[in-house]
């Protein structure tokens, strides 16, 4: 079981990091998703891997699994879920406003910070 869980965490982290390094927003968002899955799974293992042990005190049982990591994972899941929703919205708005889904700032370097004098037409999409 250790090998399975460890390789799953490692693989998801690797996939996440690889996708994060892409130049367009969509793979970056997916990569962030993979990274947060990896860390959630990892947090579950930090109270040691155990099977068939309750986290809550029950009479007649003297071996428990650690309940704290499960509470922490719950918090982490909620936060990463909200963050993913937010970054999808930002990526979409960015795409709609600039007409390009590049994640780097080069595409907008020619544009100016001055919102009042922005060109009306979106810049042509660059070849990737």
């Amino acid at each position, binding site marked *: 079981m250790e090998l399975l869980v460890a390789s799953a965490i490692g693989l998801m982290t690797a996939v996440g990091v690889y996708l994060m390094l892409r130049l367009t927003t969509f793979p970056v968002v997916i990569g962030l998703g993979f990274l947060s899955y990896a860390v959630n799974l990892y947090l579950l*293992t*930090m109270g040691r891997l155990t099977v068939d042990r309750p986290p809550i005190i029950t009479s007649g049982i003297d071996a428990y699994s650690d309940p704290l*990591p499960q509470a922490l994972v719950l918090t982490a899941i909620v936060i990463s879920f909200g*963050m993913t929703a937010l970054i999808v919205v930002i990526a979409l708005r960015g795409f709609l406003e600039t007409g390009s889904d590049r994640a780097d700032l080069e595409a907008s370097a020619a544009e100016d910070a001055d919102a009042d004098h*922005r060109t009306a037409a979106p810049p042509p999409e660059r070849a990737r």
Partner: protein
Amino acid sequence: MTDLIALPTVLPAMTAAFLLLAVRHDLTRQRFVSVAATAALLVVAIALYLVASDGEPRPYFLGDWPAPFGIVLVLDRLSATMLVLAAALALCVVLYAVAGWDARGRHFHALFQFQLLGINGAFLTGDVFNLFVFFEVMLIASYGLMLHGGGARRLQAGFQYVTINLVASTLFLFAVGLIYAVTGTLNMADLAVKAPRANPADAALLRTGALLLFLVFAIKAALVPLHWWLPATYAAASAPVAALFAIMTKVGAYAMLRVYGTVLGADAGPLAGVAGPWIVPAALATVALGAIGMLASRTLLDLVCFAIIGSMGMLLIAIGVSGPAGVTAALYYIVHSTVAGAALFLLVDLIAERRGRLLDRLVPAPAIRQHNLLGGLFLLGAMAIVGLPPLSGFIGKLMILDASRANAGAPWIWSIVLGMTLLMIVGFARAGSTVFWKTEAGAPVEARHRERKLPLAVAGLLIGATAALAAFGGPVTLALQKTAEQTLDTAGYVRAVLGPAALLPKARP
């Protein structure tokens, strides 16, 4: 009296909810409520500072659960100082924003209060996982604030900002996981007790966890090479938001002081000084990069952003030097660079607004309205952040150089800091002479709206604060010295949170 400790988190949370639910369509009332709540927060922070100034750390147990099990807030001199600084800055920023910036997007004030909730919570929490939670609260609000006003450039810079911070959050969770797996606790006081007694076989894991955590704080504090998100973000954010963000980098510095000063301090066994060898070289690189970036800047905003990076470098040198003198210098520099940085962001906004289409680009233009006043304030702000006498930056740099005399890297620190300060002066002189002296003939750009005095007064107040910080340097330094001693007193912190019994059994189980 200890119930007051929860108020800096409760008050902004209630205010934000009230702003969203009760007055979401009425900007005038929003402004009134937000300014009143922020002023009340400053009063609470000052009251807490007075409470904390007797030198005793005070825990506050939420729900009355005893310390290592429940959620605990801890008030000591360090957190009280940071609370006062954050509240004072927030009041200035909100007063600046009500003059018009808050009308350029929706829910500015609600997001602003949520941001304060996160910042105050991060300063007060006594638990590493809750530090993560408050970081997230702070960041979620900052994403909204950063995008305030909209526009393509802001959205693209915002995407990068959110991404880097999500990666930092993931790293934070990995670090928390490693630390919990080895020590079985995340309460800071409990961690301070258990980390030195950890199984030596697990020491490598624990060190990895502590260094990953340092990486997260370094991203927040914009330490080279993790600084590159800062110029794009701050330059794209609206002026009051950028000024408020001046305290956000200091949250990273605070977390370093708390975790590597108080919790994993000098007697933390395998973890003692775990981040030490990394900080000073990276901080020196940060100072150098800030100064060189200033020379390369083509707009005033970029100039100020790189000046902020340079000042974070100075601050982190002091944290890296460590010891009571280093921490005192770091605290003084935290206060100074927050105030001076925020003042410069507001000033640049005022100047850009008066230059019409040219904004803050470093090209000659006709003289602006209130040319001499703004030019003078900009000069004072530049002197403060670069570190020329008689303003607070000079005293701060002097304290840092003095504290680093005993450090092995002292020749490096002295030569790089002094050399880079010269470059920073050149950078500011170049920018200031282009904007204020190379004026072309022509009428100044007409005001688009009715001119208000409040924003200018706020910027002037912040500049005045750096002068006051220098004028009252003696008493301020004495207070910060006591703060530094308390920050490094791990035993006192543990005794206050866990009770006197926690420290007794010293032997390894």
